[in-house]
């Protein structure tokens, strides 16, 4: 059972790391992080903080771009290029195929995020950051990776039935909504309170509430990350809660992806 799963994961990992575009993105990430040094030198005594903020933003952004663009092609490309015929006619279950693809890309993103993270932590160490600060930055990078795992799961789900362009749009929308879900809830509460006639409650009020309950609150991850980079340690309990919360969404999305793949015909 694990031989097939591992084989698909390894193949997906190989496919992504042998794609030259990945290296272009990583190179960009290094260059942008280095640009943080120049920006920091323009500030007064904030070099380290600017480098840290810039580096984390780059890891989040470049990691997100890679996750979205590779994730939305993950299953779709197999169907489009008809390589799926050679895989699904072997004795493996479709959940193994979906999970294997997901794990392969997740490991690739882990390596990329890890490299970018090591580079950032190394630069911060050179600039004289304390070990305690470096540990907190490493935790923040871990949370970015957790968020990317969620983005890959969303992209994988859409790639099982939609074209890459549609999947990119859907995944971006979910990612953005996830970051704004608290604001959406507040907005819906405000609009409800300001409307005297119940019948006039706009449908977008309800939509905001539904979105809040469906999409995970990614803003929480950002808040905790902010705490960490402000050198304020976060309780292990909160970190554990966040990891469980995001993992639950990932498992749910992978189950949905498997369900779609099970139902699909490959004509």
């Amino acid at each position, binding site marked *: 059972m694990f031989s097939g799963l591992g084989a698909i994961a390894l193949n997906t990992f190989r496919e992504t790391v042998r794609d030259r575009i990945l290296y272009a993105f990583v190179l960009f990430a290094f260059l942008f992080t280095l640009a943080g040094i120049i920006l920091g030198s323009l500030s007064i005594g904030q070099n380290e903080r600017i480098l840290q903020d810039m580096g984390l933003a780059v890891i989040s952004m470049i990691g997100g771009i890679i996750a979205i663009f590779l994730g939305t092609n993950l299953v779709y490309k197999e169907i489009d290029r*008809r390589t799926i*015929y*050679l895989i*699904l006619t072997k*004795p493996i279950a479709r959940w193994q195929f979906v999970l294997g693809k997901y794990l392969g890309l997740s490991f690739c993103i882990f390596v990329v995020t890890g490299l970018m993270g090591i580079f950032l932590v190394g630069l911060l160490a050179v600039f004289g950051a304390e070990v305690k600060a470096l540990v907190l930055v490493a935790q923040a990078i871990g949370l970015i990776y957790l968020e990317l795992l969620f983005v890959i799961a969303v992209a994988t789900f859409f790639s099982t039935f939609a074209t890459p362009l549609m999947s990119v749009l859907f995944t971006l929308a979910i990612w953005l909504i996830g970051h704004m879900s608290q604001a959406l809830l507040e907005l819906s509460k405000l609009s409800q309170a300001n409307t005297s006639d119940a019948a006039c409650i706009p449908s977008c009020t309800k939509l905001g509430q539904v979105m809040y309950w469906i999409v995970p609150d990614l803003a929480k991850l950002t808040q905790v990350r902010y705490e960490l980079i402000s050198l304020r340690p976060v309780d292990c309990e909160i970190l554990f809660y966040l990891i469980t919360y995001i993992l639950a969404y990932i498992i749910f999305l992978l189950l949905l992806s498997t369900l779609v793949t099970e139902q699909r015909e490959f*004509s």
Partner: protein
Amino acid sequence: MTNYVIETSDLIKDHTSPFLRKKFRALDRVTIRVPEGQTYGLLGLNGAGKTTFLKLLLGLLKVTDGQVSVFGHEPGSPKALARIGFLPESPYFYSHLTAQEFLDLVGKLFGMNGKTRKAKSLELLAMVSMAEHAKRPLRKYSKGMLQRLGLAQSLMNDPDILFWDEPTSGLDPIGRRDVRQIILKLKSQGKTIFFNSHLLPDVNEVCDHVGILHRGRLIGEKAITDSAGTGRYQDLEKYFLETIAQADQSRSANS
């Protein structure tokens, strides 16, 4: 009692257009039984439903109505797939892999251990005359080379039955001869072979039994081991053309 490896009974497959909800019947009450050890050639014009039939046997498509089983199992079940070697029509591969890496991947999917995978992939690459290209990326392969690799990967698990969709397409005369020889060798080992083709000379040379699929219907079946010698091919061609002409005539008479 005869052991049937493939059994279909009144098999129906409808394709539905996603927007217009219009139905198109790709297969209409197809009943085929293939006993163990037989080499069965499914003939038909382009679009007759041959590939659809194969995909139903493999579980890539879902049955609309009727019965289908492979080794007594549901199509697409891991137990059935473990005993099948499949070659799709004009196979597509992962262009980032080399031939050896690809065969290794296939071996892993069948749960084979590392030593067996390596030995088997080298043996198969030699068999399809691809040993010297084992470490070249597949994106640099010609169509014929990909077809040869497709044949090799379908034999990786030492299958009991082979499902080959147009195995000789894209091959030069030497490649076609090699494939025919491989089929004859597999036949001598008692393997069951089921393949789609519209190349009558190839079918004629290796098959024990043929079926003709036309517009989704099985319009004829015939054992071809009974005739022998140079007249065999002409017999098969004549039988094929006459059966299709008759089916078209009765169709236009009915409509």
